[in-house]
């Protein structure tokens, strides 16, 4: 499995993190005020957690605002065939690939390959999807499905963590509450979710700014200016940048916490192909994901993926069984233990490779 370890969290760490998990946009000064402690003590914990647990406040970003699309999908390929190596080769060398991962343990004789690509709308995207379909058409026994992401959510439920162990129900209670939630999906409150726009202008500066906010929601104007210079964009005044940042944080980005070494070493992917008449399913997935330790949900009109991080000791078969029962006849699901992403590129990496290409 991955290199994820468990480094215990102290009660003071948990206090700050739980507050932040509820509202990740909080700055240190607001947090200190809310908790009745000094700003320096919050800053001290913050810095320590950054070092020990890779703590960051990152953002889900609205690619649509800058004329881009998040395309996601999965292919099922016979595990022992040469097709798998061909597909991997093509996928991993793709300039637009933001994420690729493979099944490590599944209940089929296929390897499932999950991928995400960030593509400029229009011809580039059509070219990519035609290449994908053409390739899969030539690989024997391979099927592929893909969709455009419409909503993305991130969840970290620290209420289930006491600093050293996780306590959550992956069995009956989860199944029952999820089953019940399906009955009133349309009125469920949705939090931590960002709707991706279908149209937007494609300003390179905005794209570059968005790429900085994706990695650090609280990035200062000075940090942003440095990043822009790195990406080869001209100098903008810090005042202008601050104005841009405020707009981006307010409308185009949704913050979430990233935390490593909290004992979530098992990655389970649940890939769901919805029945088009059952639109509430992806909504339920976005909501119920919050009942699990750490998760990310991406959904489109036809496909949804639930990317889970679980404690190694948790019973993923029981959880899968609960999810499958919840999904029922209205959809088809592929559930597997996935390896850590082979390719994981933030927008900044994708931009950087694109700008290098433009310059050469």
């Amino acid at each position, binding site marked *: *499995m991955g290199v994820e370890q468990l480094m215990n969290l102290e009660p003071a760490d948990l206090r700050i993190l739980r507050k932040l998990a509820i509202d990740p946009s909080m700055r240190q000064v607001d947090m200190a005020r809310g908790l009745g402690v000094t700003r320096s003590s919050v800053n001290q914990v913050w810095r320590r957690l950054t070092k020990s647990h890779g703590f960051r406040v990152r953002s889900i970003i609205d690619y649509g605002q800058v004329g881009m699309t998040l395309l996601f999908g999965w292919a099922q390929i016979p595990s022992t065939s040469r097709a798998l190596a061909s597909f991997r080769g093509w996928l991993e060398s793709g300039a637009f690939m933001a994420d690729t991962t493979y099944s*490590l343990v599944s209940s089929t004789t296929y390897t499932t390959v999950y991928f995400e690509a960030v593509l400029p709308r229009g011809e580039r995207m059509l070219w990519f999807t035609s290449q994908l379909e053409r390739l899969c058409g030539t690989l024997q026994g391979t099927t592929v499905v893909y969709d455009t992401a419409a909503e993305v959510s991130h969840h970290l439920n620290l209420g289930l963590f006491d600093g050293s162990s996780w306590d959550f129900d992956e069995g009956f209670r989860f199944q029952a509450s999820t089953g019940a939630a399906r009955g009133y999906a349309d009125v469920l409150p949705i939090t931590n979710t960002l709707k991706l726009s279908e149209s937007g202008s494609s300003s390179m500066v905005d794209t570059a700014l968005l790429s900085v906010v994706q990695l650090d929601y609280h990035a200062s104007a000075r940090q942003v200016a440095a990043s822009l210079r790195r990406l080869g964009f001209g100098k903008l005044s810090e005042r202008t940048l601050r104005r841009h940042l405020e707009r981006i944080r307010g409308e185009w980005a949704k913050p979430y916490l990233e935390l490593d070494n909290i004992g979530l070493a098992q990655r389970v992917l649940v890939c769901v192909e919805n029945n088009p008449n059952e639109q509430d399913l992806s909504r339920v997935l976005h909501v119920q994901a919050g009942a699990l330790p750490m998760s990310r949900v991406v959904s489109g009109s036809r496909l949804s993926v639930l990317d889970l991080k679980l404690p190694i000791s948790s019973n993923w078969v029981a959880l899968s*069984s609960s999810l499958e029962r919840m999904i029922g006849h209205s959809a088809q699901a592929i559930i597997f233990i996935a390896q850590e992403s082979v390719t994981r590129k933030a927008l900044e990496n994708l931009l950087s490779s694109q700008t290098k290409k433009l310059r050469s």
Partner: protein
Amino acid sequence: MLRELASGQGAFPQISTPYDELFPLVEDASSRFYLEAIRLYLGLCAGTVNLDDALRFVERLKENPEFAKSPCDPTLVPVNEHFETKIVENLKTLKKYNLHTPDSIKSAYSFAFLVEEAPMNEKDLMVLSHLVKSPLAPANKIAESLRIAPKTVVRSIARLKRDHTVRFSCLSDNSAFGVQSVILFFRLAENIEWSEVESQFAEFPFTKALLKTEMSDTGYASFMFPGDDEEISVLESSMRKLTGSVFDYTSMHVQEGASSDVNLSLFEGGDWVLPEILSRPDDLESTENAYVGLHILPCRGRTRGFQRKDFAVASELRSDIRALPVAVSQSLRIKGWDVDAKQVAYSTRKMIEHGILEPDVVFGGLGLSTNFCFEIVCSPLWKRRLVSLMPQMPAAMSYLSPRGIVVWIQVPSQHQVEYYQFFRSLERRRGVESVLPIMTLAQKGSRAMLDLVRHWHLEGDFWYVEPDELNLSAYLQ
């Protein structure tokens, strides 16, 4: 305390429990089956039903068609606080969300009995290690060997059964009684609903166990029936008829042997380590000679001197081979068999001496929380290699057939990827045709051998079935 239900719901005896107000009122037989099973378990915990009544109650439960799909027998579940709390929590959850569907009631039952870890003390582990090597060892012999008091051993065994779901079971060579055992692996064809196929399998009188998780279209069904090649060929040809319509993959294994192994030497200092073979898979190719002398129970065919009563005793001993003969005799009496304690003791000894029974120990705890089943279609040489591999697994059972070997392994979750990939990678070896994985939840049971007997016919001193009755395609359409 058993009381009759009010009219309108039939004269099904009802057990009272301290949690009666939590039970939803349901009409359908399937939901009632699981609720009655829950009631029985809670009744056993509360002491409102004695074991004899409970056994009679289970016989009534078996008449419900749901039993063939999920053969649950609450009398085999250890009475402990953990399971009791879980089942009560699940009943409360049903009530909270107002859930009455058969599926949710079934889940409330089955999720409650997933084994969870309880820490095992050093003495219990020592006793378990001894029992794994010698499942029938009397308490005083174990005490002598471990240099502890016999009372400590008795208490340890009780704790192992109650808190660690340790069960003393046995493999049995049913071919000695002229009984065949067959496993059918299948993958459902597109647009075929499992719930329908499951009900049809359940109606087939010879179905012993069914396993298919929601995670995949692949599953297996096992069958048991008296007969020989003629009966098997009818089943085989009916299965062929179903391939392409109900199933798009079928693979049938006729049992020719079995093994059961536990390897506690991998449990070091409270944690499991990986066996060396996983890092040196090429060593597998030189292990076939180790096959000789392994604990394999071969199917040797009809053996003179073994009668129906011996079969009945063997069936009971699979639940608890350490049970006192008098308890086995009483349990058989409730099931309509008159075999006194003396006969039970004699029959048990005779079957063990003739290699018809092979005692073993099965358990669900000690960190072995991941369960895999692999159907491996392979050459006879690879079959020997894989049987030789089994004693190196933490806990494994195998089922040998002319097509290859079916393996069930229990492994610690932190090593699940390594074990899974080790087995899946065998597919690349010359001589191994396919390795089909199935994830399983541990608690799934099977019908006891004696439950199947009611569908067999008697001729002289033994059973038979008409070959046509094995036509599975008449049920699965």
